């Protein structure tokens, strides 16, 4: 009997039986690699809160059953897939892992807010990024070549002389031809002028002296006599005005730097050997790049 008890195989079987009983009593293992799936209260709560976020109400019992069933299928599929090794050598999974790693690094950078001094320095070294546009305000009188096929230009010259005599406060409501184009543009960015009247007109207006009727300025619609009532140079941006933009650019730059540093640091741990591709492949690659940038 003693000999039998000392038999390793029996010891092994007995230990196995004990372990089995113990696990049964404890409720069994339910992690990856086992065939047991336990949907804990926590998981159910997660499913319920996911549903509630979408629907703004908790699921009905039938809906909850559907959610749980789906979750069970997903869990089974996950385990089987991993067991079959489907997660290995998967470009997408590798890409996602890289993304997660990079995201961690980028996230860490965003946590310490930069000081105003840092932002000011950034603004000083990159003023063009935040440069506002020059602004202009104008009034205009329109002459339609459709309505005056031959006389538009001569009429414009005559009208201009009158307007100059009348000066800044000339009453222009009854002058020129009716149009849907605005007779007056309040002080705004110069791009607003080209959006409304076109680039040609905006260029013409840029050459006019403020405070005096000028033109005729040509547009895609016809001729215009224009009074630039106000013109402001592009203001140099103050940090207070563009703080959110500077912050955005600053943080973006900081995450880029952190990523670069990360890779530089990690690269030091590795020895990288690149086998250069053979000649024909390189040619092909060059040709396809050229093709895609042609236009």
């Amino acid at each position, binding site marked *: 009997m003693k000999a039998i008890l000392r038999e390793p195989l029996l010891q092994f079987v007995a230990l196995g039986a004990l372990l089995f009983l113990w696990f049964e009593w404890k409720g069994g293992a339910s992690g990856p690699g086992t065939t047991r799936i336990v949907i804990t209260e926590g998981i159910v709560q997660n499913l319920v809160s996911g549903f509630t976020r979408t629907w703004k109400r908790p699921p009905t019992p039938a809906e909850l059953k559907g959610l749980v069933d789906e979750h069970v299928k997903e869990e089974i599929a996950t385990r089987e897939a*991993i067991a079959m090794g489907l997660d290995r050598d998967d470009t997408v999974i590798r890409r996602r892992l890289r993304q997660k790693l990079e995201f961690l690094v980028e996230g860490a950078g965003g946590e310490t807010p930069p000081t105003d001094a840092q932002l000011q320095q950034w603004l000083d070294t990159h003023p063009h990024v935040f440069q506002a546009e020059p602004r202009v305000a104008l009034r205009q009188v329109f002459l339609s070549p459709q309505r005056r096929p031959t006389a538009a230009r001569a009429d414009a010259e005559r009208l201009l002389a009158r307007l100059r005599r009348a000066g800044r406060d000339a009453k222009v409501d009854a002058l020129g031809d009716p149009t*849907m184009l605005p007779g007056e543009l309040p002080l705004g960015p110069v791009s607003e002028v080209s*959006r409304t009247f076109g680039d040609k007109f905006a260029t013409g207006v840029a050459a006019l002296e403020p405070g005096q009727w000028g033109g005729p300025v040509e547009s895609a619609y016809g001729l215009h006599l224009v009074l630039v009532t106000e013109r402001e140079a592009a203001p140099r941006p103050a940090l207070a005005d563009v703080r959110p933009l500077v912050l955005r650019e600053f943080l973006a730059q900081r995450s880029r730097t952190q990523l670069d540093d990360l890779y530089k640091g990690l690269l030091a741990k590795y020895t990288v050997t690149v086998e250069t591709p053979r000649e024909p492949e390189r040619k092909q690659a060059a040709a396809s790049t050229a093709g895609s940038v042609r236009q």
Partner: protein
Amino acid sequence: MRHPLARWCLAVVMLGATPVAAVAQDAGEHNPADLAKTFSNKPPYSPYAGRSFPTRPLFGDTHLHTAFSMDAGAFGAKLGPADAFKFARGEEVTSNTGQPVKLSRPLDFLVVADHSDGFGFFPQVVGGAPAIMADPQGRKWNEMITSGKGADAALDIIRNFGAGTISKAIFPVPGTAVYRSAWQQAVKAAEAANDPGRFTAFIGYEWTSNTAGNNLHRNVVFRDDATKALQIEPYTTMKPLGSDDPVDLWKWMTAFEEKTGGRVLAIAHNGNLSNGQMFPMVEAFGRKIDRAYADERAKWERLYEVTQTKGTGEAHPYLSPNDEFADFEIWDKGNLDGSVAKKKEMLEFEYARSALKNGLILEQKLGVNPYKFGLIGSTDAHTGLAAIEEENFFGKTAPQEPSPERLTKTFFADPKTGIKIMDWEVGASGYAAVWATENTREAIFDAMERRETYATTGTRMVMRFFGGWDFEEKDAHDRMPARVGYAKGVPMGGDLQKAPAGKAPTFLAAALKDPIGANLDRIQIVKGWLDAKGEVHEQVFDVAWSGARKPDPKTGKVPSVGSTVDVANATWTNTIGAPELIAVWKDPGFDPAQRAFYYARVIEIPTPRWTAYDVKRFGNTPLPGTRMTVTERGYTSPIWYTPN
């Protein structure tokens, strides 16, 4: 305008309670004595002071996909929402195929509307859940994409999605960390790009109901910011969390508004690919079209996207045989995936004009018109690039970005049905124009809700359209048509009721060409009405046109404007057409007992189509039958007349 009386007078004018002639600034009609009587104080020097109506339309796109959309990503889109906003604001970006690209002018607003099903599939989700990608179907698509067959993978994905045969394990669904993170990123991009007063970045998504390949897609647009949008995750079409039935989407929208106090709207598109399902008359999803359906649809879907890259859906030549402009960028071969061919009897339930007509029938029957929608255009580009100008067209999907090949390639083909769409058939269209009082989410959303919008096929023409009972010829000569329009009538999207005895509706329609675009050929007013016998009719009236053309005495139609297009050089000249057109029109066939709607359509002179620019720039040869010219156009939201 500080004087209280002056302010009061202006308010009265805005309400239309006094005749506008009192303040009209046209010299011919101006009478100082009358003015003095009406205003005890001088009107403000500046006619623009105190003006509360919008003065410039805002142009945008309510329907742009980025790499976050499963199919866009599969097609090779790399640009995400942040890039899309950057490009729309007028900055230069590098396209998905590595080409530098920039808009001729910035847009004023943008809705990035990525598909809610599989939100963030590419690039985030493709790798997000390893177990999900272990699915054989997912693996197959992944291999197709990595081996350079992304376009085939995308079409296969769309086909399987439409057929409901995508493995459930593949799509990230609301409630998962992956889905949540993609939605957060999309919302964050909109928040970062939103710049009130200068550029509006809306939070939004597309709900892509596509059962059996029938396109019932809707874009959902949020009025509010992240604090509300992040309380939820987008509604999907896949059960159990989602549904493919629009009625369930409306329930979700109701739940969102009740829960958060926010506001949302939905814009349907591509009825032309719904095979008769977009505007049902009898039943939908096994339920009768009843009062409840009409109430809900009228409440949530106040706009319809009438033109985009996958065809224009205003009118169809079969439905409107007397409309010589109805044949515009038509896609009528089948449903979205080409799995079922089109039958003529489906068309009536797919096109905007017939839906507007059928809406009158339903209104008579149910008391509410479910199809009382305004019109907008948008791109539906899947490139992150709202680039649909003919000479700057970056295609619908990444493989359709400019290349010598796109002129002759196949967009998709179903060998079973024989349905085939070529890349050249994709239209460079459209944009949404909104008469908002300022460039903010709130103001644009509210203008959309009141349907004060119009659709263009990519041009940025300015369109005004007002309806009232008292417009007169001289209003067309006013210096500020908008002021007369708002004072004497309602703008596009509005309602006319209580016809004064013996009066017919009058309309003020005006259009100004795109400052860098083509001249205008004509303004038309399209009328649809329901007669005493319960039958619907339509008629197109030419109301303003360029030059000295005379309408045909029999048909009333104005002859063609001609064409200056030099296809070989991809050029045209503005030597025909007019830069500006305006007219007052009175309905000659008005019957106060009959329901009716009116909308304006403005047609440009012919210009080179994007295909002509391709031939000119790449020196390649188009396939026979390729359209090389286009007449860009705009469609206003209708104005409805309802008998008391």
